[in-house]
């Protein structure tokens, strides 16, 4: 550690009050009241000394900044995409891409939804269809590549709607909502061959591609001798473009991009980014943030980094398994996902078991986690609730921030809550925002 950030301890009474004020939504708790923050791994990484040095090299020229050209070169070299449009974060890239590629009535198949991604698809007039393998919806199933696509599901969609109404297949590495589960190279290759036949693009949500590459290296035949860098390049080579939230894998606090191989899409994106984000050589980012991103991308594909990163998540997951806590298996790349349905079988899904569990975990020791279940899933365009099969609480591990001792505290606290699980009550929603309700919804405890 080269620089530390001081933490504040709180008392149970303080946490009780903070939780009530936040309407039992961990998103609404002030971070000052949090001891260990596992809300997200997005934008919460500790940057390296090299990245901080890069921050000082920021060239804040409005047009043609050096840092942009550095970033462009790194994206081309490490990720292998031809054209880069920076954006202030991942959802900025999703917004632009969806507006360019999706027409009203289009179908976008993908390996499980992600909250912001699906919303952008819907707002652009498209409809998301899940084509992930069934194993992904079963938290107990130990299949190593639960991020895989079921090609027969895709085929059915093509037969039903026609390939012309499918602008692209959306592939995430690794799959966040399934518990940080990877897709295998073999599956991706097969998908590529299949979509090529139907002339359908593959767009890559590559926010955790290095973590996915690590699982391929560890678990897939023929990849144990390949470097993370090589595997990442190979994954990307089977896709036509990508949206990236650099706030995850790329170890920065802010930033993202859209990268494509098709010049026409690039040109359209470049014209659009000026309206939403900023001129195409800064995309709404300070020059220094592009520099930190360029350096972070290089670091993210280093073997030692990714091994320590995923290793820490596995350490926490195994510790929780030893306590008998029901978690999603296999353990994912960026967090441990607790199965709230099994943890709190007495709370029906409409009373938000995962939300209730996240609140309870905060209360015990000030550990902040996030609901990834019915609240996050939101409502269909017709207003009905989605009822996702997975009702999870995500313990997301920020990169390079917490130590092993922190992991021990987290597991111990989860075990204490598990011991008194029968006393935990469900919630009712008292305020529901129109979009992405999980961010700002408020709840009350059921009596």
């Amino acid at each position: 550690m080269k620089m530390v950030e001081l933490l504040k301890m709180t008392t149970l009474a303080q946490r009780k009050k903070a939780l009530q004020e936040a309407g039992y939504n961990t998103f609404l708790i002030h971070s000052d009241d949090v001891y260990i923050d596992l809300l997200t791994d997005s934008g919460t990484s500790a940057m390296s000394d090299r990245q901080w040095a890069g921050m000082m090299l920021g060239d804040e020229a409005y047009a043609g900044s050096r840092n942009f050209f550095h970033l462009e070169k790194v994206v081309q070299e490490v990720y292998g995409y031809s054209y880069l449009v920076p954006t202030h974060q991942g959802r900025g890239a999703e917004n632009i891409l969806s507006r360019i590629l999706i027409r009203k009535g289009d179908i976008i198949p993908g390996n499980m939804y992600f909250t912001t991604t699906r919303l952008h698809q819907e707002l652009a007039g498209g409809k998301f269809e899940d084509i992930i393998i069934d194993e992904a919806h079963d938290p107990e199933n130990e299949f190593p590549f639960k991020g895989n696509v079921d090609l027969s599901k895709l085929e059915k969609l093509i037969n039903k709607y026609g390939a012309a109404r499918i602008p692209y297949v959306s592939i995430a590495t690794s799959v966040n909502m399934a518990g940080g589960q990877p897709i295998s190279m073999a599956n991706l290759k097969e998908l590529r061959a299949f979509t090529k036949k139907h002339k359908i693009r593959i767009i890559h949500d590559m926010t955790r591609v290095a973590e996915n590459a690590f699982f391929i290296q560890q678990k897939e035949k023929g990849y144990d001798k390949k470097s993370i860098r090589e595997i990442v390049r190979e994954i990307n080579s089977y896709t036509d473009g990508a949206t990236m939230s650099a706030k995850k894998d790329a170890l920065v606090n802010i930033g993202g991009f859209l990268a494509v191989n098709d010049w026409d899409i690039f040109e359209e994106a470049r014209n659009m980014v000026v309206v939403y984000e900023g001129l195409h050589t800064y995309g709404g980012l300070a020059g220094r943030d592009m520099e930190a991103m360029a350096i972070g991308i290089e670091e993210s594909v280093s073997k030692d980094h990714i091994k320590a990163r995923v290793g820490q998540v596995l350490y926490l997951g195994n510790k929780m398994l030893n306590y008998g806590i029901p978690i999603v298996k296999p353990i994912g790349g960026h967090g441990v996902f607790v199965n709230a349905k099994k943890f709190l079988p007495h709370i029906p899904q409409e009373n938000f078991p995962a939300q209730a569990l996240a609140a309870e975990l905060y209360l015990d020791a000030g550990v902040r986690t996030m609901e990834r279940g019915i609240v996050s899933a939101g409502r269909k365009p017709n207003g009905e609730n989605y009822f996702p099969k997975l009702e999870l609480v995500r313990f997301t591990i920020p990169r390079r921030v917490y130590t092993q001792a922190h992991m021990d505290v987290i597991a111990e606290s989860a075990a204490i809550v598990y011991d008194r699980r029968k006393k935990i009550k469900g919630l009712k929603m008292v305020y529901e925002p129109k979009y992405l309700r999980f961010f700002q919804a408020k709840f009350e405890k059921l009596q």
Partner: protein
Amino acid sequence: MHTIIEPFRIKSIEPIYFNTALERKSVLEKAFYNPFLIHSNDVIIDLLTDSGTSAMSSNQWAGIMNGDESYAGSPSFFRFKETVQGITGMPFIIPTHQGRAAERILFEMIGGPGKFFISNTLFDTTRANIEFSGATGIDLICEEGKHPSIPAPFKGNMDVKALTQTIKEKGAENIPLIILTITNNSGGGQPVSMQNIQAVHKVCKQFQIPLFLDACRFAENAWFIKMREEGYADKTIPEIVHELFSYADGCTMSAKKDAFANIGGFLAMHSESLALQCRNLLIITEGFPTYGGLAGRDLEAISIGLKEVMEENYLQYRVRSIEYLTEKLVAAGVPVMRPGGGHAVYLDAKEFLPHIPIDQYPGQALTCALYEEGGIRSVEIGSLMFGKYDSGGKLIPATLELVRLAIPRRVYTQSHIDYVAEVVIDVFKKRNQIHGLEILEEAPALRHFTVKLKPITV
């Protein structure tokens, strides 16, 4: 009186790379005669914009190190919110990654086909966001604002009579907002007087239309009020700023200007219901409401910068440095907008290059000449930026053909500015040799950012 010096000294420097006129000629060619497409490494003095190009103070850098990057509920946000509430007096504060995002959210919410937004002068991205929503933007600048060479103290004022008339014409129900840009960037960085703000506020009240400020340069505007408007000489800048915001129902802000930040912006308002709607939209494209697409450290830097900008010694130096360049150019007979604005010197390209017809973009031709002569990057604010085509494909020109030399805050010294004056004067002497330009390729919106051109040589 002694020379007005910078109320700061240099703590960290950034080297400049020098190139030759010959190299610059080829850079210009490769950039298709569009300064936006030149790499910053090839620029000697970058006066393209004052947006995001400020030098932060050591205090701001310390704030950068203090940034709390929690996704939700970061203390950096709460400090930011408190500062902005204190300055604007508005309770609802929404951070965005920069000013245009604040504008886009606002206009997507309340704009749409059939709606009209009236302003003193809308800036390029503001106008683009309004038009993107399907609405129409109307500029009603006062008469003095239309004549670059005639000095007047408040050339950014809105024509209040025309405002009343336009509201009656279009119907108050079709006008969701009146926007005052302070200072008036496209009109030469000219200030709006308190009296004018009051008068516009009165009209807004009468027709029950909310008044919003495009407040990017609120402190520079406040300084001009203190210097030029009767009854304000003895008031402090925070007092003037406070009064200025008290007439508004909300504001959009690009923190990349008067907050000395390299990135960031916000929306502030009194209406809770509008804030709630804006936040719903914010989450989709920007980020969670307590970070709005910014790193926590940037929220810290903005909140510190907002306080620094209201220091009188700083504002006096800032405005004086613009005046200094203006005076040098006026003395050499160069046609400039007078008096000097708050953040930039504006050359009058129509008068500078009378031999180049408007549809050959004299302003753009002048920016190219300045670059080639001395590596100075400036921006055209004229018919390339704001021009439109009629149904016959003929250019409808903008009111003014200006070239803006925007001075980044706290970045360049007096000798840099002396160099700029020399280059401009040299170009002025050779002005007859400058050719017009024609467009090769352009985008449908905000074309000036990516347009490609070539010189017209006979």
